[in-house]
């Protein structure tokens, strides 16, 4: 062995030898493979071959995710106990002094009761809204830092498909974006790329509820002529035919009417915040009554028309007040922006 590994190999390694040790050629090959995979993945989305591979991979690895969720759940229960201790220190201190075992039992019962309440709420929601839906458990959160998603424990084998809306008892949580045989990935409302047709329940003003990287929800495309107040409830409008009409989304926490702006800046706090739900309903199909009616669509169109008129009148008044020849530019810009919104 010393003879075979001597002299030439140690002292003056050949270029080929060096390259093999460092893996330069392998790196080049794998970089090309990665770039090809990346390109195919970005172009094909979730519908191509790679989507199928990912779906299969998630199905195969779902048992490990289950184990992770099962291991993490007691710690969540523990966190609840600590929260309760700080919330009502005196009562819980006395209870703890009296009987630790009773407290432990109490925590277990509370957990069971909460689960029962959540399930009952889900059933109530299902009955009230006459949803055609299937219940599922949330088994894990987002695996990467990029997206706000949760994974649920049912997939195509339960009749789920990409695009189906998902709701908790407190409100809508998002939409399925990936569907394996036994698991599905749900994009949450708060995800940056999430966008839902919504309306303010009291004034029926219609707009789009969009997520952001900060986890904040914004209700956009509500014109300044509409009335929206802090505390108003925001629900799904049913436009687009994906979400049933009237499901709760959140509550308005801030409304700003910036001078010169066509639309209000509205911040919405979601009813179903991440971590507050463990069981969800996946809405598998919509009945005719749950979709937006022609009246709703006309109302949305009328709102856009009003917005257009308002913007045009603003432009007109702007042009009449300024006589410097910028009328065409001002009107054109405003109308163009409004038309773009309508589209």
């Amino acid at each position: 062995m010393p003879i075979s590994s001597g002299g030439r190999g140690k002292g003056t390694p050949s270029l080929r030898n060096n390259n093999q040790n460092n893996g330069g050629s392998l790196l080049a090959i794998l970089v090309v493979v990665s770039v090809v995979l990346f390109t195919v993945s970005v172009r094909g989305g979730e519908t191509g071959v790679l989507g199928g591979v990912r779906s299969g991979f998630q199905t195969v690895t779902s048992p490990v995710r289950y184990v992770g969720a099962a291991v993490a759940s007691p710690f969540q229960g523990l966190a609840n106990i600590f929260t309760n201790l700080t919330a009502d220190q005196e009562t819980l201190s006395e209870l703890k002094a009296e009987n630790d075992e009773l407290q432990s039992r109490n925590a277990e019962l509370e957990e069971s009761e909460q689960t029962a309440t959540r399930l009952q709420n889900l059933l109530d929601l299902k009955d009230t809204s006459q949803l055609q839906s299937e219940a599922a458990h949330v088994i894990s959160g987002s695996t990467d830092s990029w997206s706000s998603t949760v994974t649920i424990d049912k997939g195509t084998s339960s009749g789920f498909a990409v695009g189906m809306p998902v709701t908790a008892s407190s409100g809508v949580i998002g939409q399925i974006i990936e569907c394996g045989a036994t698991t599905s990935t749900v994009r949450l409302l708060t995800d940056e790329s999430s966008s839902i047709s919504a309306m303010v329940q009291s004034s029926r003003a219609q707009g789009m509820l969009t997520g952001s990287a900060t986890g904040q929800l914004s209700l956009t495309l509500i014109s300044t002529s509409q009335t929206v107040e802090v505390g108003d409830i925001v629900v799904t409008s049913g436009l687009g035919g994906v979400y049933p009409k009237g499901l709760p989304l959140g509550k308005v926490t801030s409304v700003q009417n910036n001078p010169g702006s066509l639309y209000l800046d509205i911040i919405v706090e979601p009813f179903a915040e991440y971590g507050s739900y463990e069981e969800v309903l996946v809405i598998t199909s919509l009945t005719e009554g749950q979709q937006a009616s022609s009246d709703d669509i006309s109302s949305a169109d009328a709102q856009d028309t009003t917005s257009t008129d308002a913007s045009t009148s603003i432009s007109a008044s702007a042009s009449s007040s300024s006589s410097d020849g910028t009328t065409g530019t001002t009107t054109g810009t405003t109308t163009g922006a409004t038309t773009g919104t309508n589209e």
Partner: protein
Amino acid sequence: MQVSDRNRDQRSILVLALVCGVLQLALAPNVGLGNGRANFALIFSVCISLMVGGRKSVLAGFCAGLFFDLSTTGPIGLMSLLLCVSSYVMGLEGRNRVSGDFGLTMGSFAAHALAVSLAYHIAMLLVGQASGLVDVVLLRTLPTAILTILAFIPFAVWLTRAQPSGPSLGGGRGRSSRGSHLDMRGL
């Protein structure tokens, strides 16, 4: 003697792959810092780079990246690209220098974690998945890098204990060149 060492390396790699794979699937989704999630694929690839280096680390980086890509909702191929490049660089430059030294290992890993995380998120920004660079850096990259660095600490301790400093044990060059020499001769 050498056969025994190689078997031990392979066993270590296998166990490490299993541990990191399970942690990526089971732990990472349940422990978060803001939007950040620990990247155990990166940890695995860096460990292999520091333990073995060379071609194996590049291959391990690619496989780990692919595993990460498949377990997330991002585009497939991006993390595998970043991790095989990162493994190559780490194996090439950092291996002999940092192995056996906890501080240097952590420092080197932190730099790689930040670079990989930033590159990943900027690539996501370029494919149109984000609205601004500030969000990408402050809300995505930093939490991810911090959590990943924290998650690497036990691995770094294990690495420095398993591979004490010094050219005879840390290393790579002598053993690798002999190994590859034998490989070339079919031994």
